[in-house]
């Protein structure tokens, strides 16, 4: 067992960028003064998620969707194991955590699209309510995701938050990803910036 790279740089930058733009868009949601900022931050959420979709196919091993496709039963079993205090160990996303990722991506896109429609005044009052509800659902999943990270870190004696910062976990060297593809780090930033600029034309 040694320190091996699990999360590539684009995944990590994308992750923390998403954290930032999600918080920014959430806290400015009720303000008219910050409306343009809110819309730009919301589009940036969409931009990061669009990159994540691409990276889920083109990224490194643990970033690819195929590495965390689990059945609901597997996710359920993992939660039971976690509650018993003896969860199985996964270097990438665990079966329950995977569902948080998928839900965050789906809710994220739904929130952004509904927000766009509200801002473009397509659809009626119900869309405002839907946008509100979706954003709160997303916050709920964020809460569950953070809780899962805390419990998982504690159960496996590994700091998952720090892993998402530096990218390393303890494992066997043949399970590591190679540190290439670092130049792709610019991609989530670029898609976020480009998407946020849509505020000028919508």
């Amino acid at each position, binding site marked *: 067992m040694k320190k091996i790279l699990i999360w590539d740089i684009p995944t990590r930058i994308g992750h923390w960028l998403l954290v930032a733009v999600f918080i920014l868009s959430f806290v400015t949601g*009720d*303000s*008219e*003064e910050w409306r343009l900022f809110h819309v730009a931050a919301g589009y940036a959420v969409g931009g990061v998620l669009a990159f994540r979709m691409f990276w889920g196919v083109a990224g490194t091993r643990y970033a690819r969707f195929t590495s965390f496709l689990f059945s609901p039963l597997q996710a359920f079993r993992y939660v039971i194991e976690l509650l018993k205090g003896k969860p199985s160990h996964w270097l990438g996303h665990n079966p329950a955590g995977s569902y948080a990722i998928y839900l965050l991506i789906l809710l994220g896109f739904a929130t952004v699209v509904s927000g766009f429609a509200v*801002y473009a005044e397509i659809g009626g009052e119900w869309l405002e309510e839907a946008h509100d509800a979706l954003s709160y659902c997303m916050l709920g999943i964020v809460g569950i995701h953070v809780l899962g990270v805390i419990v998982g870190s504690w159960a496996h004696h590994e700091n998952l938050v720090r892993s998402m910062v530096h990218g390393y976990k303890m494992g066997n060297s043949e399970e590591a990803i190679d540190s290439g593809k670092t130049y792709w780090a610019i991609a989530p930033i670029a898609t976020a910036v480009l998407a946020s600029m849509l505020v000028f034309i919508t």
Partner: protein
Amino acid sequence: MITKKTFITLLLLVSANSTFAETPASLVSGYAAEAAKTSPGFTPSAKRGQSLFTNEWGVSQKMPNCTTCHGKNIKAEGKHVVTEKRIAPFSPAANPERFSSAAKVEKWFKRNCTEVVGRECTAAEKADFIQFITQGG
């Protein structure tokens, strides 16, 4: 007390149209009844409502008062000072959709009062305000 409440509720239901939507008048009387609980004998005043509308609150720099975005003429369209999007006229006379849903009215009072007035508006202020918007200053 309960029978009185039931009676008022029934009256509101009967006076509302088939979709149970509110009217500006039913909203005014609802807020006025709430205001009367703390200040007995409260009567809505369009004049007080107008001063709420035009008062320079100065809490928000970009949006010091309601007219910044809604315009001084409540029968004309307003323009959002930040997004520059058009805002439908405030007056129900010019825009029948206005003040037809209690939930929507509550939502926007909460959002806009918090930001422009710097706190939530009271029931008395809401009654005055809608009175002004429907009757003019």
